[in-house]
């Protein structure tokens, strides 16, 4: 078992070593290192998920033999396994997709953008895997900072004035967020003398220090997750980044701080926040769905539309707080549904941003008004875009459908029907903004658009492949996932 | 011996404090940058020097004493340079503060 647990270390250290090596090697070396890390990282994620699947037990690894509270433990439960697999899949696809853009031709002086992109890609992955696996709230703070420091340069990678301003605004939001989170860490350490998640869950009692800490940390993480009304930084940042980076930011980076919120509410401080707080979170999520979707409907540019759609789709995740729990059939269904929404959105949104990138390259612009007849010129890309859109709308059979159906069923089953109403309105609005793009593009009569550039079929295939993955997630049965339940011990006891 | 050391400490450190006080008053009250710099450097040079000298009897090891003296020397070095820089900037700016 020790050998398997060591995989948790490697999942974090491999991309971290990639960052160091790529910087040392420079030039063409960076891409080679990144490709090796992508291959290795995927294997590690599969091995960890496989181990959890076969043994049905969570993994943990104590760093340096120093057991918590003095030391740090890494832990992988079913949720970590889902997230490791999702990030490996999405980062793999983005990496392959980006090879055409971030080329370092042989024998030429080192170029800026490729080196930065490949290093930041691995930086994001280090941060994500650390968020998925770290069992200590302060290590999670460092992990969050890894995400911020690698995400911000990706936003401003092209160096255009508006993206530089967007990156600065993102940075300031993220900094306030992480300091508030750190403030909560200080309070919790002062209260209980540990920041280990498992130990905290045993020690924490509903008392003022915990309430204040949880409120500060949740607020800080919400700013990083771009939860309404702290979403203002997201659309310009995600829309301004180059396509591969947008995909990474929208699909995965915002999920890091969200999962940390989940770890706080469900794992570290279970049962501390009352029902009212959970309803409040979901209410903000609902507002995000409505406001984000309406703004997405009004955008003239495709990438901004997709970015606003991210604001909306993040909103669904916050239904986890009132609906999911360790005990009860509906609660378990909502848990699977919420996490499936995260996974499905990650895969679909990455595909969608990459499709938008290809459309932008082919047309030389991404104004939706100029899309008439695009379906004939770029059939594969538009097909992939449509498939990914199905997931956002929640049409069957897609990952988004499964997720939203589970959340909807759970909310009715738990007698919180009002969230079901929001989920349905959100689906309709998503259909609205998707069809605004698809209808002109697929209109029969229009003549094919003249393309400014040719798009390689390999890149189209990557986007299509990812979109198909989003669809295949829809084949998942509509019941709580066994893998996701691994490690949720309290609930296992409840069931028996 | 102890007593002599303690008395020396009290006297020297108090004297140093007086110089610091005078320097601070000068910094606040003097009319222009040059005279203010003059006041500050007095606090640095003499004030800190006296404080360090006064603390020496209280140190029980030679390395400890050397560290104290090093503090004074380094402050002198940095203070003199910074004063030079500020004075030059003021000079270039036409003598205004």
């Amino acid at each position, binding site marked *: 078992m020790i050998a398997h647990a060591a995989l948790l270390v490697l999942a974090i250290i491999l991309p971290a070593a990639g960052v160091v090596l790529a910087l040392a090697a420079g030039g063409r070396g960076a891409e080679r290192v990144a490709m090796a890390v992508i291959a290795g990282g995927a294997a590690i994620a599969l091995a960890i998920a496989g181990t959890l699947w076969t043994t049905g037990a969570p993994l943990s690894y104590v760093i340096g033999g120093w057991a918590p509270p*003095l030391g740090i433990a890494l832990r992988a439960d079913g949720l970590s396994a889902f997230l490791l697999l999702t990030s490996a899949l999405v980062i793999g696809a983005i990496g392959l997709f980006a090879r055409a853009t971030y080329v370092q031709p042989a024998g030429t002086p080192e170029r800026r953008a490729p080196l930065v992109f490949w290093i930041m890609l691995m930086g994001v992955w280090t941060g994500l895997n650390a968020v998925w696996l770290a069992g200590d709230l*302060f290590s999670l*703070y*460092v992990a969050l*900072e890894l995400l*911020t*420091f690698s995400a*911000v340069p990706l936003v*401003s990678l092209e*160096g255009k*004035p*508006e993206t*530089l*301003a*967007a*990156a*600065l*605004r993102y*940075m*300031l939001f993220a*900094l*306030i967020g992480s*300091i508030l989170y*750190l*403030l909560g*860490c*200080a*309070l919790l*350490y*002062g209260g209980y*003398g540990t920041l280990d998640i498992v130990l905290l869950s045993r020690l924490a009692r509903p008392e003022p220090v915990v309430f204040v800490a949880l409120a500060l940390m949740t607020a800080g993480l919400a700013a990083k997750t771009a939860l309404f009304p702290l979403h203002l930084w997201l659309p*310009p940042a995600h829309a301004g980044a180059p396509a591969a980076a947008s995909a990474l930011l929208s699909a995965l980076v915002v999920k890091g701080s969200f999962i940390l919120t989940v770890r706080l509410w469900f794992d570290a401080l279970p049962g501390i926040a009352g029902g009212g707080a959970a309803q409040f979170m979901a209410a903000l999520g609902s507002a995000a769905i409505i406001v984000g979707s309406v703004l997405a409907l*009004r*955008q*003239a*540019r495709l990438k*901004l539309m997709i970015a606003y759609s991210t604001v909306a789709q993040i909103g669904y995740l916050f239904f986890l707080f009132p609906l999911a729990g360790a005990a009860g059939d509906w609660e378990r269904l909502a848990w699977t549904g919420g996490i499936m929404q995260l996974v499905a959105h990650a895969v679909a949104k990455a595909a969608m941003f990459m499709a938008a990138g290809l459309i932008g390259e082919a047309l030389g612009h991404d*104004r939706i008004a100029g899309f008439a007849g695009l379906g004939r010129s770029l059939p594969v890309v538009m097909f992939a875009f449509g498939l990914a859109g199905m997931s956002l709308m929640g049409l069957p059979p897609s990952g988004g459908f499964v997720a939203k159906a589970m959340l909807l069923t759970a909310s009715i089953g738990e007698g919180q029907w009002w969230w079901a109403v929001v989920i349905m309105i959100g689906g309709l609005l998503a259909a609205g903004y998707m069809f605004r793009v698809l209808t002109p593009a697929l209109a029969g009569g229009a003549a094919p658009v003249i393309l400014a550039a040719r798009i390689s079929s390999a890149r189209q295939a990557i986007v299509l492949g990812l979109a198909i993955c989003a669809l295949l997630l829809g084949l998942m049965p509509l019941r709580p996932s066994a893998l996701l339940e691994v490690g949720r011990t309290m609930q296992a006891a409840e069931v028996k | 011996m102890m007593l002599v050391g303690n008395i020396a400490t009290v006297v020297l450190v108090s004297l140093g404090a007086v110089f610091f006080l005078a320097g601070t008053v000068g910094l606040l009250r003097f009319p222009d940058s040059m005279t203010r710099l003059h006041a500050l450097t007095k606090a640095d040079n003499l004030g800190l020097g006296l404080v360090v000298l006064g603390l020496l009897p209280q140190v029980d090891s030679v390395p400890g004493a050397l560290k104290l003296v090093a503090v004074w020397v380094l402050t002198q070095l940095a203070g003199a340079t910074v004063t030079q820089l500020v004075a030059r900037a003021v000079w270039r700016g036409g003598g205004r503060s």
Partner: protein
Amino acid sequence: MTPATLYGLCSAVLVGAGLYGALVNPQPLRKILALNLLGSGTFLLFGVIARRGAAAGLGGDPVPQAMVITGIVVAFSATALAVALLLRVYQETGRTTLEQPAPKDVV
């Protein structure tokens, strides 16, 4: 009042002042300064907690102290990156505001 409590109150006020400055001050450089105040207040709270946890012959619990050292370094890196971004924004646009250009692209 023990010194630890005194510095604890100090950290509370620093956090409030930093938060207010970061939210209200329109100049990005001043926002960055205010964030550093906010950070300093947070670190000081760790220090107070460490002081209250003095044991085993140590003046304070070394674990939160070590966390502060890590935190100061991260805060410095953040300041350096944010400042570099700000300078580049100024270089490109001659502006030091975070306002987006008016959204002309809305239908």
